[in-house]
Structure formats: structure tokens, C-alpha cells
């Protein structure tokens, strides 16, 4: 393991301190328990938006806290959900008196810990609603699994739901639009390599030199199917077909086409994926009206990527276009 770190145990605290100094105009960093909230604190009267999850999904940590996106976030250890007290602290920091939405990615650990935190918040009379993001179409949503995972689409959901809270949506309407966003999108990804959690010191799984993992999650867990390496157009065929089948896009619909890099995959390769995905949607008569390509939700230095496609109506387009000012995503500000 060759990494630009000191003691593996200090990676997260040194990362977060560095981040908070570099972006002190946007975020405030608290250490006991660890969470980030917007510089200046909760916006009074606005619905609060809190998310959280394991670390290693950069620029999370604090990268999506700021105007137009999250009010606060609770980052856990690498690939481990945060603890209830972290989530509670983030919830308190996000509470402007109008309640707080928990945007939770569908992993057992995250669900359980957010559930405990919501119970604690209720005891403090903070109104909490929860929306679970499960955009990963690679996992069948059946009683045989813990359900579809929350993956790259969660970042779009954070941005658009944050925009809704800025536009004055109350807690119920915020939860409603967040659910609508979740229902409007699907994601599927693949990995070419594993990644190495600093505290573990070795790769999270082993992949042969000619193998890829289809339907990869974003926590270094193995995917749903290991297949021989293919040309990227064939891979994109599998990914896009799976999302299109799940979402049943129709001719004439408008969509966001969003390629997310998992860390070590060059942007050039991500745009090559975009290129072919766009051609496929074009052939189906689906209009790509918004585009997003980049490392929005990584798995440390994993090589791989995912394709997210989201149905966009007027409301969702407006939320996507709204200004946002965070370290990881900025426009209009």
C-alpha cells in the first residue's frame, strides 16, 4: 500500500482538518462528534437537509455542504456508516426550526444508525423525515437482499433536494420531491480494480488482470457479477440497458445523463462512456437535456465508473439548474 498519508489512523482527521481550513468560507468542521455544517449554521425557517455515510466517497465528507445542497453531514469511518450521535449532532446543526430531512443511502448500517439518530432527535423535539436513496439497479429489489443500494445518484438527489429546501419547500414537500427524484433515476456501475482502505492496508477485493466487476457498489464491496474485460461500448451497453429497462424511458422524454468516476478512472474514459451512452439514448429518442461527468462520488482510488440516468420534468430540471455553492459542486455562485 503506497499512499500519501501519515499514520493510517489519522487519515480522516487530517483530511477533514485540511478540508475545513481550505473551505472555511463554506463549511464548519466539528470533531466531537465529527460532523460538518454550513458556515454560519442553520438557516432559520428553512427545512434542513442532512446526509451521511461512510468516508471514502470523496468529495464527501464536507464536499457537498453549502448553499443549495446539504446543511450538514455526518461522515463515518471509511466505508462505515456514521454513528447515531454524529447524525444527531448534524441534525441539530441543520435544524432551523422547520424540521430536518435525513437523506440516507440504502445500506443496513446507514439505515440502522440513522434510525437510532431519528429516535434521539425526536426526543429533542426535532421533526425528522427520512428518504432512503436506492438508485442501484444492479441489485434486485426483493426480499432476498437488503434492497437496492444508494450509489452515485445520491449526489444528484442531495443537490436537487437541497435546492428544494432553498426554494422554501417544507419538510413534507421536501421528502416528497426527494422520493420523486429517487424514483426518477437508476444507476449501474462497474469496477476495474479494487481500492485500499488505509486502515485495512490491503485491497477490499481481488480482481484478475482481465476481469471486471459489474454492478459494483461504492463501498469496496464486490459487485453482482464478475465478467471478462470487454470494450467500453459493450460495458456501457450493459449498464445503460439495465437502467433503461428499470426506468422504462420513453421516446421524447428529457433526461440527465450522469457518468460518475470511482476515483482512478481518467475523465477521458468517463467521457468515452458518456459518448456511447448518449448515442444509445439518442437512438431511443430520449433527449439528454442535462449532462454531468466526473468524480462526484468515489470509492477512494478505485478504477471504474457508473452511469446514472434521471427522468427530468420541469420541476426536477429547475432543481438541477438551481445555484449551488459547495467545495465539490459549484455553479451560479
Amino acid at each position, binding site marked *: 500500500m503506497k499512499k500519501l498519508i501519515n499514520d493510517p489512523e489519522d487519515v480522516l482527521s487530517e483530511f477533514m482538518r485540511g478540508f475545513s481550513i481550505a473551505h472555511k468560507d463554506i463549511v464548519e468542521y466539528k470533531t466531537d*462528534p465529527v460532523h460538518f455544517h454550513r458556515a454560519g449554521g442553520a438557516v432559520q425557517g428553512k427545512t434542513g437537509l442532512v446526509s451521511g455515510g*461512510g468516508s471514502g466517497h470523496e468529495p464527501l465528507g464536507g464536499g457537498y455542504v453549502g448553499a443549495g445542497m446539504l446543511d450538514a453531514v455526518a461522515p*463515518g*469511518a*471509511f*466505508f*462505515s*456508516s*456514521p*454513528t*447515531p*450521535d*454524529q447524525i444527531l449532532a448534524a441534525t441539530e446543526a441543520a435544524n432551523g426550526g422547520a424540521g430536518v430531512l435525513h437523506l440516507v443511502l440504502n*445500506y*443496513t*448500517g446507514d439505515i*440502522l*444508525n440513522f*434510525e*437510532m439518530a431519528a429516535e434521539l432527535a425526536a426526543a429533542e423535539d426535532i421533526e425528522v423525515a427520512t428518504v432512503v436513496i436506492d438508485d442501484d439497479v444492479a*441489485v434486485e429489489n426483493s*426480499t*432476498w*437482499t*437488503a434492497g437496492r*443500494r444508494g450509489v452515485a445518484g445520491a449526489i444528484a438527489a442531495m443537490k436537487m433536494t437541497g435546492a428544494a429546501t432553498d426554494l422554501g419547500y417544507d419538510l413534507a414537500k421536501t421528502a416528497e420531491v426527494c422520493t420523486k427524484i429517487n424514483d426518477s433515476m437508476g444507476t449501474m456501475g462497474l469496477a476495474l480494480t479494487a481500492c485500499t*482502505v488505509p*486502515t*485495512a492496508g*490491503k485491497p*477490499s*477485493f481481488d480482481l484478475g488482470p482481465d476481469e471486471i466487476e459489474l*454492478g459494483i*457498489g461504492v*463501498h*469496496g*464491496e*464486490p*459487485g*453482482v457479477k464478475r465478467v471478462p474485460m470487454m470494450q467500453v461500448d459493450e460495458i456501457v451497453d450493459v449498464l445503460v440497458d439495465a437502467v433503461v429497462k428499470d426506468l422504462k424511458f420513453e421516446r421524447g422524454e428529457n433526461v440527465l445523463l450522469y457518468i460518475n468516476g470511482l476515483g482512478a478512472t481518467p475523465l477521458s474514459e468517463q467521457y468515452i462512456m458518456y459518448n456511447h451512452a448518449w448515442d444509445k439514448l439518442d437512438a431511443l429518442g430520449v433527449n439528454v437535456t442535462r449532462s454531468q461527468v466526473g468524480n462526484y462520488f468515489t470509492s477512494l482510488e478505485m478504477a471504474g465508473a457508473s452511469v446514472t440516468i434521471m427522468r427530468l420534468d420541469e420541476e426536477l430540471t429547475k432543481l438541477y439548474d438551481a445555484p449551488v455553492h459547495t467545495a465539490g459542486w459549484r455553479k451560479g455562485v
Partner: protein
Amino acid sequence: MADTLGAGWALDWIKKTAAVVNAQREELTDLDRAIGDGDHGANLDRGFQAVLVKLDGATPATAGEVLKTVATTLISTVGGASGALYGTAFLRASKLGDSDLDAAGVVALLQAGVDGIVQRGKASVGEKTMVDAWTPALAAGNEAVAAGKSPAEVLDAMAVAAQEGAVATEPLVATKGRASYLGERSAGHRDPGAQSTAYVLRAAADAAAAA
């Protein structure tokens, strides 16, 4: 060997648990690498090391007090599925630890903990989770109590059954937790949480034997 177990046993149990989790950190992590995200050993080790710090110099009067500290510390340091589940288990168990425990009392305390795990995690037997170690352990414990065994003997029977239960998760296909994403590919690997459960119960038995 004592007829009843109290704060001393509970303290020793938790110290032994912290020691075994630390010693087996790599093994637990490797099990989780195979079918999860490779952090179970690190998660529990972080949690129990924090527990050791919290208990250092403390003089709790009851097993319940010890377990409550364990619960709140695990809840605030572990994260992940196991943090919520073990945290909930110790919290529920702590409520039955106000006075010294006879054999039946020990099993009742652990039963309360497992009820918490099931209530939170909604897993039943055969889903390849820690429940597959806890359930046979409780059955063995109840049997030993009925046969009039001492607390130490009861816990030993539970630890043996838990370890067997952990081994028995190997052929199972997971339907709960991260391992469920792997579908059929989860078969052939032992569930990390079931194995850590076996270690927790082994530590409890060893502490009782020394009490």
C-alpha cells in the same frame, strides 16, 4: 467458580472481548472483505478499545452499569451495521443487569440483547447474519439452564453453540446486510458478525470460569 455473576464478571467479559477482537481484528476484517466491505474487525476493535478507555478506572456497581457503558460507547464509536446492532444488544441487556445473575438470569440478559438485534435488524435464522450464532447459543443456554448447570457452564455451552453457528453460516446465501448483494456468491464464506458473536460469548464464558 461463582454461583452468580455480577459487575466483576461483566468487566472481565468486556476486557476479554476487547482482547480477542483486537487479536482477531485481521481475521474478522478478512471475513468481511470476502462478502462485505472489509471493516468488521476495524469497526469492533475501534469500539472495544474505546470501551476499555471508558471503563479504565471506573468502578461500576452492577453488570448493568458495565453493559450500559459498553452500549453507549459502541453506539458512538463503531458505526456500520454492527455498531447499531451490538450497541442495541448491550443496551437492552444492561436493563436486566441490576443485580447479580444466576444461570437463568444470564440467559435472560442475553435473550434481551438478541431481541434488540432482531428488532432492529429484522433478520431471522438462516439469513447469514450474527443472528445465526446468537440463536443456537440461546437454545443451548436454555437447555443448560434446564439441566441445572452453573452460569459458567451455561455460558460455555452458549459459546460452543455460537461458534458452531458461525461455522454453519458458511454454506448459506446471505439475504440481509451487505453480503446479500453477492447473492449466490456469498455462499462458501463465514459471516463476520456471526464469528464476532462467537468471540463475544467465548469471552463471557472464560470470564465466568475465572469468576
